């Protein structure tokens, strides 16, 4: 069967894309978490500063926003987990293909060859 080692570049690109998507989702989740924290601080301030007659009205809106942010955060966490799973699967596919190509002694693209920096230099001997 004819194999095409350039397919490795394609698999590596997919792995990179999936990893990037996963990292972007992690950033979004952190942003959402910060927003939720801000909203909770805001609610705490309302509870401290407003009198009981205005407190219920002001809290109502904030509570709704907090609930919405919590739902969004839960959804984003699920999404991030899915993306992490996909990223890991893409990594496994690439790694298996790379190891197979190496084991078969296929002529790998330059940037996928195992790095070989040569044999370590011989130790310098004193009084040589």
């Amino acid at each position, binding site marked *: 069967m004819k194999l095409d080692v350039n397919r490795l570049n394609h698999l590596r690109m997919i792995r990179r894309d999936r990893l990037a998507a996963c990292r972007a989702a992690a950033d979004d989740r952190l942003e959402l978490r910060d927003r939720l924290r801000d909203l909770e601080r805001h609610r705490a301030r309302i509870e401290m500063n407003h009198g009981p007659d205005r407190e219920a009205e002001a809290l109502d809106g904030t509570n709704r926003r907090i609930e919405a942010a919590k739902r969004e955060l839960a959804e984003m966490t699920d999404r991030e987990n899915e993306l992490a799973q996909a990223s890991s*699967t893409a990594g496994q596919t690439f790694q298996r293909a790379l190891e197979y190509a190496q084991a078969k002694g296929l002529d790998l693209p330059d940037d996928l060859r195992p790095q070989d920096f040569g044999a370590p230099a011989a130790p310098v001997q004193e009084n040589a």
Partner: protein
Amino acid sequence: MAALIEKLTTRRKAATKGAGDARKALSELRQMGSRLRDQRADIEARPVPLAEAQDAAAQAVLREAEGAIADLNLSSLTRPQDCRTPTLSLDARQMAMLAFASQAEGMAALLSAALAEQYRDMPQGIAADERAATLAKIDADLLACELAEEATVREQEREGAAPLRRGDADPRAVLANDAELR
């Protein structure tokens, strides 16, 4: 204008249906691959045929019996006797092995019957050449299935979708030249 919109709508629906069909095909191919891998594991785990196991038991008994006799030191019986009573310098294990050797045929029959009993609850045995041939056939089917799966994935990629390859996809399929997948 209406005709153009109608045409584009038809095309969009066809594309949506096509994408759905491709997803379905991929899922079916994966199920087929999974079934083939299960079949492979089943064939690998099947025991040897009963007759082969019984033959192996008979040979093992014979080997043990031969070993028991070969280990004996009978010099005390071959030396000229003076006034001493003849003795066997055998330990308990050697005596047990000697008893075993004297009953080798009976032991083999006993093991044979035990094996026959055990095989009643086991999957049917399979001979080595039949096992090898069946595994080779399954492996060929598996490779064909993996190649078809990879071809479907590449088709979907060309159409802009991003289906996920399996982490344990066969490297021969994912590295296969496009021409191999037609």
